[in-house]
């Protein structure tokens, strides 16, 4: 069979796409793990968080997070009766080393652990020009570091400030919900390191997961619900002042 020049020109784009697919290779397979059987989220119990920073340190160590950037961090809120809408918040070094004792008196102090919300309708995956950031069938938002252009549009689109530009990879980066661990039956590094159980990984598709009982008996909230991102980080005891 002979190909005309026209046919070759028509085939070139298709061949380029096919070659891209070959280069992408196959995703790593975790034995005994079926993505469609899980739907991951996390329960963050503000009433239990003591702001020790173990989760931040564990995350940084587990995921080789560069200094000054955070896949997870802790915020300390100080809310007084007169300033509910304008709380005083700090997060020195993301709370990695804990918090210095608070000199402020009156009002309430509490800690809020933050991380990627692994939103069901995530604005970050929506805006990625090449689909380098995507949602897995088990509900985790990930980044393909070999594909990301480093345009940082996703960082702008995240309402929660969870993404950063990796200084050496030159791509966007963020929490992976320790995907390399949870697909092997382990929990995330931050959940494992938390001494008070303030963070609990939750599989919403697993009927035996304790999250279901918890959700039935507690009032939980997600961050910035008005943005309708379908956030899957459920907060117990979330104060209205938290942004």
């Amino acid at each position, binding site marked *: 069979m002979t190909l005309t020049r026209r046919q070759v020109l028509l085939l070139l784009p298709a061949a380029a796409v096919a070659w891209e697919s070959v280069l992408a290779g196959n995703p790593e397979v975790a034995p005994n793990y079926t993505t469609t059987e899980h739907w991951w989220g996390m329960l963050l119990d503000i009433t239990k968080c003591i702001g020790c920073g173990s989760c931040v340190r564990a995350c940084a160590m587990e995921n080789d997070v560069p200094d000054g950037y955070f896949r997870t961090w802790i915020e300390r809120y100080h809310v007084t009766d007169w300033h509910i809408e304008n709380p005083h*918040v700090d997060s020195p*070094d993301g709370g990695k080393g804990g918090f210095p004792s608070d000199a402020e008196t009156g009002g309430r102090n509490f800690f809020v652990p933050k991380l990627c919300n692994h939103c069901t309708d995530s604005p970050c995956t929506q805006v990625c020009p*090449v689909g380098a950031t995507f949602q897995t069938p088990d509900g985790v938002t990930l980044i393909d570091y070999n594909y990301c252009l*480093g345009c940082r549009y996703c960082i702008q689109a995240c309402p929660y400030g969870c993404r950063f530009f990796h200084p050496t990879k030159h791509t966007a980066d963020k929490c992976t919900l320790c995907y390399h661990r949870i697909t092997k039956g382990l929990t995330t590094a931050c959940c494992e390191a938390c001494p008070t159980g303030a963070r609990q990984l939750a599989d919403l598709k697993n009927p035996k997961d304790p999250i279901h009982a918890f959700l039935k008996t507690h009032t939980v909230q997600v961050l910035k619900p008005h943005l309708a991102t379908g956030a899957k980080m459920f907060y117990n005891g979330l104060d209205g002042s938290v942004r």
Partner: protein
Amino acid sequence: MEGFMYPNEVELQWSVLIVLYPFLTGLVAGAFILASLERVFRVEEVKPTYRLALLTALAFLIVAPLPLQLHLGHPERSFEMYLTPHRSSAMAMFGFVYLWYLMAVLVLEIWLDYRRDIVLLAESSRGWKRPLYRLLTLGSYNISAGALRVDDRAGWLVTLIGIPSAFLLHGYVGFIFGSIKANPWWSTPLMPVVFLFSAMVSGIALVLLMYMLTSLLRRTAIDMRCLDTIAKYLLYTFIIDFTLEMLDLIHRIYESDESFRSLDFMVHTRLFISQIVFQIFLGTLLPIGLLAATQLVKFTEAARKRIYAFAGILTMIGIFAMRWNVVIGGQLFSKSFLGYTSYKMGFVTREGLVPAVILLVLPFVILFVLIKILPPWHEENIGALHADGTD
């Protein structure tokens, strides 16, 4: 840094290069729309600037993607936007809108308009220019009256398609910002419309300035009828642009949603000089006032020229400030609305001042080369043709 920022927010993601991108594409869209006034709407007065406007648009369009490339963490992967575009991403469409506008509209229109000149120049020129013009003919040497009529008709059609394409090019740039619900400074459905009208304002001002500058350099008389008409269009589009921006502002002030206090503080502090002083007073109200004065008072030609030049320069500063305030301003406050950061521009860094200045100068260098290859002045072409004895 002041107040509380989410820890990852401290670093600004989009630098001065991303300010340049909407500024440059705006100039392209605006210059093209001015050119189309003559072609489609038969505004004969602006005819002396038709070709200059097209070449200006092309020069700026060639440079428009460069700041983006320089900004990317992995510029070598940018072609992925063509191979595997993510359909839900506004940015993914950039490559296609850009290519469409460059190849299907601007280059085609310029080629059709210049085809007769190119053919004649291919026959009359000597040395290295000859193969260049022969290449530019694309093998089409037929310049009979019938063929030129077809060119003219096709050019008209391309311009007709070009107008919505120019709207698409810049309206879409506005959509890139306007569709980010996470950022209240950007998130408004007015953003694409504001971007579009500000693009027209900047493009018209640029062509006005280029026409005056080239006339000065060539020591030729300025067609005042043309200049007055361009200035009039500049005033009208400026009034629409300013009205839209004020509508957005009034709406924000009256609604005063959760982000208002934070944004209001920013406008009164970090953005005061660039927003209130440069964008609104020096870059909008003053040029509108000057242009309106020329409509109300009978000035001499020399005075009008000075006023137009001054208003044009102020307009360019104002529109650049507007792009700055959108792009940089949108990153100075925390999405927690509890704190503010500041932008420190590098100097000779990859995204610093020097590359930005080079990218601002580059379109003028390209335009100079384009003008040398394809002179937009009719009398010169005719001269060349007469010298050859073919016309």
